[in-house]
């Protein structure tokens, strides 16, 4: 089966600075994968390349065997590390927007989650706190029935209770055929959620492994192992 995300000798250089180099990866379907690494390791660059927001300097990145483009954007649901909504928009405008552009957007599911978190449909983005904006964004992204979810720091700005809700949402919303790639440095929080890890540092992949393998072979939790590998 074609991996949902594949990188072959992928490199990205920004104005003379190498962000990613010689990345070889194959992420299969049906997994929740933690993309873990310290700040500035290249996590966001890799995710943006997969979302089609950046063009590779060298090598290939393939989504379900295809280079990023209109077709892969249908399959990929991407949550950036920043707010991407216009301030004037109301929640119901956003629901309309997603329903208009994504065939696989499940409006009922989104409305149910918004209700659970007490977010009104007439609320404007302008009036929301940073954490609420992040929740709305995550809800919309997770309400798509996508093949690949790319979540860049999805839990960074929200309180621990909301964090648990979000992680539960991620687990309960993805189907067994889709893959979730979560980038974060809050490893302890996602440890129970993820199946596999990719450790990345200075634009290189240090390790790809299943969480079970780390536990059995290293006799450590992912969090402990991460601290050991990336010791400063």
């Amino acid at each position, binding site marked *: 089966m074609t991996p949902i995300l594949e990188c072959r000798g992928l490199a990205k250089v920004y104005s003379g600075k190498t962000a990613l180099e010689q990345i070889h990866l194959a992420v299969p379907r049906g997994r929740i994968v933690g993309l873990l690494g310290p700040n500035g390791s290249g996590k966001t660059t890799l995710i943006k390349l997969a979302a089609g927001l950046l063009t590779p300097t060298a090598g290939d990145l393939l989504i379900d065997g295809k280079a990023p483009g209109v077709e892969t954007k249908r399959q990929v649901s991407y949550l*950036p590390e920043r707010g991407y909504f216009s301030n004037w928009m109301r929640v119901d405008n956003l629901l309309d927007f997603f329903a208009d552009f994504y065939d696989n957007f499940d409006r009922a599911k989104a409305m149910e989650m918004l209700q659970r978190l007490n977010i009104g449909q007439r609320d404007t983005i302008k009036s929301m706190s940073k954490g609420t904006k992040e929740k709305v964004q995550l809800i919309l992204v997770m309400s798509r029935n996508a093949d690949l979810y790319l979540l860049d720091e999805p839990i960074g700005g929200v309180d621990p209770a909301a964090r648990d809700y979000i992680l539960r949402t991620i687990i309960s919303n993805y189907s067994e055929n889709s893959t979730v790639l979560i980038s974060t440095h809050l490893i302890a929080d996602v440890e129970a959620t993820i199946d596999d890890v990719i450790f990345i540092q200075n634009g290189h992949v240090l390790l790809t492994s299943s969480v079970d393998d780390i536990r059995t072979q290293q006799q450590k939790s992912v969090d402990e192992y991460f601290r050991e590998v990336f010791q400063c």
Partner: protein
Amino acid sequence: MLGKLIKHEFKATYRIFLPLYCALLILCVFVRFLYSNPVQRFTSSGHWLLVLLPILVAILYALLMAVVFFVTLVVMSQRFSKNLLGDEGYLMYTLPVPSWQHVTSKSLVAGIWMFASCAIAVSSIVVIQLQFSTLSAFWRDFWEAMGYIAKDFEISTPLFAIELLILCVLFAFSAILPFFAAISLGQLWRQHRVLGAILSYVGFIIAQQIITALIYQGVYYALRMDNYPAVDGAGHIMLLLTIALAVLFGAGYFLLANGLLSKKLNLE
């Protein structure tokens, strides 16, 4: 998908333009009222504040007219840069839509607003100036003048009117498209995007002026317009040339913006 992009583009921008247009129209009705004979007789003989009122309202009207055009250019340019090249670009560029549709929807909607701004401005002048008693005379004179020019151009009056309308629409687009091309080029200077866009814009306009002047001069002499009699229908050829140049420059700016955003897009 292009239709949906256009729909959302209108949704995002009409909130700014409709109130502005309403304000201009209300103000022009007010100007007309204040400058109508009976009211003017009343205000000019009253308190100095009353004397000042029509002048102030007229100044306000003129200012608002300028603001309408300024806002059209600024809002549409800002929308282009924020929505496609700022944080909102993270949403727009992950939609399953090819890049040319983004540039097309932005250009189309911006051009339509620019045309609407011109149309509202002209309408407001008509509202102020026009005497209803002489309305039919006005139309008669207008078409008569059009007829004279059309005769000189050796074409029918309706065809001349249509060509003139096409030219107006094209001018609306060519006012906004160099801004889009300049913003798209400016984003290549990572640290100085705004400066890059401004310099690109100035460069485009200077280049456009030089090219246009050279072509006009060449055609002017080729048509022997400096002599009498000139080539038959020379005036019409000049009008068609103006249309052709507006199309060419507009297309050039559009293709440049589109090419840069589809091939060189690197959102920070």
